[in-house]
């Protein structure tokens, strides 16, 4: 019973404020070359505000989380790929260095 009460309290608290739509990460992801996942993030981010305005609070929160998730995967993918490419360059450099 107490737990249930806590839950409703928690819900009203989280409903009081519109979730951060995480658009900024999607835009940064597309600008900084982190693969096209940024576009998915932007599309989700656009839905947050309109869903919130319609009163679909749960869906709005879910979309915001989705926007964050895709931007994050884009960034992680971009960083991992960049590190792999740097390692590749270093190996190439070492090989050419040893040949002479």
């Amino acid at each position: 019973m107490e737990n249930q009460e806590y839950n409703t309290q928690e819900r009203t608290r989280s409903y009081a404020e519109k979730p951060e739509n995480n658009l900024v990460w999607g835009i940064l992801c597309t600008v900084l070359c982190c693969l096209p996942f940024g576009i998915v993030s932007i599309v989700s981010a656009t839905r947050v505000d309109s869903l919130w305005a319609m009163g679909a609070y749960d869906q709005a929160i879910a979309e915001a989380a989705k926007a964050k998730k895709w931007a994050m995967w884009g960034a992680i993918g971009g960083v991992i790929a960049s590190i792999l490419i740097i390692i590749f360059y270093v190996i190439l450099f070492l090989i050419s260095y040893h040949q002479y």
Partner: protein
Amino acid sequence: MTKEDLKKHKMAILFPIILVVLGIIYYNMDPTASNSFFPKCPMKFITGYNCPSCGIQRAIHCVLHGEFQKAIQYNLFLTISIPFAFIVIIASWYNFNHIFDGLNKFICNRYVLITYIILYFSWWIIRNILNC
């Protein structure tokens, strides 16, 4: 400033620091130099095609040295995307006391973002056809 404020405005504080550090790195190192270890764009590395943001590192190096014309030649789309990214950053991270609520409304506008996405994809196609 309370601890919660600090957590909330974490990016507002971190962003200028990141900007300055990257500025120093890109001012001093030339990505076109043969001995540079700057990572090539993963898309370009794998497919050989330019992605919409390819050339950003070379362009930033040129801009920091005042060579604007050369920077535009590397990537024309950056003249749209970087100012837009700055607007989005200011509106979302520096929205203290709701001063940028109007700007927030503008960037979250469906049509603004659809235009951005359409420009992004058309630039992607055009630059690979015209090879620019």
